[in-house]
């Protein structure tokens, strides 16, 4: 197991390198000259060629590409993502608290999604084809087709405006969590519970279940075996789901004015604040890789067959 973890972790190094390289190159693909963007953001009335050249030197853009990249990458390792073009403050000072807020929202939502998906998946699998199964699946079909921001708006309108029970936006107390978490949970649980369900059902038809029954084991014991095996698939999917949720709370954060990464990124995109966009992409891609690795390791721990695969 130990050697598996080492091998798996070593695979992430080249991946992280390529991710950082791509993220860096991305900015250079922009049709706009970053120097011009900086000057525009600082509201300098007259942008002269001299000023542009000066700014380029300031940003280190006159150096060869590879040096630029290395400087940037080394700075990133020290969590120094440069300064915002717009505010002039360090990127870290605005992105760190936002990241924390998004993590909080993601964490609470993920827990709800996992609990709900497993519960619904197990219920549906054990009652396969019965009314409970059909109706839960029918409702989930409808919910997954619903744009989450639409659901969010309707819930704000009903619970916050009409009933005046919950805050419409912001992140003030535990109450602020309720609506965004419900919306995120509803839109994802509908997808993930299906995975739990289908993996449970395929396990129900395995021979080991038959042999367990034939050996006179109690249904409780057999269900534990089925859960153990079907949750393997589910766990790896949940690990994958967390970074996906992390990345796609963007819309929800904007609807609920949640002071997180999603809102920061949209704001930066609209104001062309490249360093923040860059840091945002880098952080989320790294989180994605980290969670993938984590999910593989968890899987290998649960399923000894997989350890040999690397």
């Amino acid at each position, binding site marked *: 197991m130990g050697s598996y973890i080492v091998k798996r972790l070593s695979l992430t190094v080249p991946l992280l390198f390529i991710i950082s390289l791509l993220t860096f190159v991305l900015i250079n693909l922009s049709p706009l000259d970053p120097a011009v963007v900086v000057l525009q953001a600082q509201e300098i009335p007259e942008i002269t060629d001299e000023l542009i050249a000066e700014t380029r030197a300031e940003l280190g853009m006159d150096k060869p590409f590879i040096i630029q990249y290395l400087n940037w990458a080394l700075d990133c390792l020290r969590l120094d993502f440069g300064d915002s073009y717009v505010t002039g403050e360090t990127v870290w000072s605005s992105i760190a608290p936002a990241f924390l807020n998004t993590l909080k929202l993601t964490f609470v939502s993920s827990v709800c999604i996992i609990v709900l998906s497993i519960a619904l998946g197990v219920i549906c699998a054990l009652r396969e084809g019965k009314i409970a199964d059909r109706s839960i699946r029918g409702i989930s079909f409808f919910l997954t087709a619903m*744009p989450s921001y*639409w659901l969010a708006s309707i819930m704000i309108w009903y619970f916050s405006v009409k009933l005046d029970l919950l805050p419409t936006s912001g992140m003030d107390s535990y109450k602020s969590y309720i609506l965004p978490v419900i919306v995120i949970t509803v839109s994802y649980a509908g997808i993930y519970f299906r995975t739990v369900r289908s993996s449970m059902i395929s396990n129900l038809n395995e021979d080991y279940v038959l042999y367990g029954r034939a050996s006179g084991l109690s249904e409780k014991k057999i269900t534990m075996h089925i859960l153990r095996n079907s949750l393997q698939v589910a766990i790896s999917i949940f690990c994958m789901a967390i970074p996906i949720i992390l990345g796609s709370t963007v819309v929800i954060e904007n609807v609920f004015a949640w002071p997180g990464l999603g809102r920061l990124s949209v704001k930066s995109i609209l104001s062309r604040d490249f360093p923040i966009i860059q840091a945002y992409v880098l952080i989320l891609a790294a989180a994605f890789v980290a969670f993938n690795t984590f999910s593989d390791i968890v899987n290998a721990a649960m399923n000894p067959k997989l350890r040999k695969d690397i």
Partner: protein
Amino acid sequence: MRTLKNLSRDRLAIASLIVIAITIVAGVFAPLFAPHDPAEVNMKLRYASSSWEYALGNDHLGRCILSRIIYGIRPSVLWVLVALILSVFIGAVIGFISGYFRGKTDAFLMRICDIMLSFPGYVMTLAVVGILGAGLENILIAFVVMKWAWFARVIRTSVMQYAEMNYVKFAKASGIGHWRIMVKHIIPVTFADIAVISSGSICSMILQISGLSFLGLGIQAPNAEWGMMLNEAREVMFSRPELMLAPGLAIILIVSAFNFVSDALQVALDPKLTTSNASLQEEEGKQPVYEYIRS
């Protein structure tokens, strides 16, 4: 043929296909279907409720909501379809090359796919939009850039599966050219798998593009787009919540329709799924979930 027959038995799938067909036709021939000019501002009719002339009422600028919904099909559905077809095409070419020839080409192409897939799709879409600027074209470019790798993976798996079949091996052994084998024996059978994954991912793409437009990163005013209509409606949400209804329901309707078709296609292609001894292949079963990124 059997697939079509299975599909035709599923009434829900037929209804969904009809909805999709009507939507596409209405979108393509929007000027014929729309009762009014979608950009025609009429301040006298602000927030008017539905009437004979304006079936779905009017928005905050007095524009005809029905006409805007119909014109909105173009960016919300038709352009997404174009992006989908493009990325499926790129994915299919790469998937075919990888899955059929295997060896070093395959290893190389799949490494690239792995790297592409290790970026979270939604974040990268945002990044591309962030770098290139807000706008429908840029989102569509981002879609193609981000999605092809995933299609390539799935299509490769499917091609590999069929390339291993005895009749293909036989064709190879009897000296029939690669091109002929692909066209005659592999493309027709993998087409079914391609249909399933495309119909599945169109849903997430429609939801994403409307989400991005909702954030103001998509198509720019005064063009009509469903997500943007919702964004405009949000500003008056507290006083006129009913404006949220029409575009929201339009999205739900079309996404549900694609969802049902995708589901029905899967069942039609794999009759095992209808019976209770369904054994979803783990690999295929879980990948769409990763892909399914919500807006």
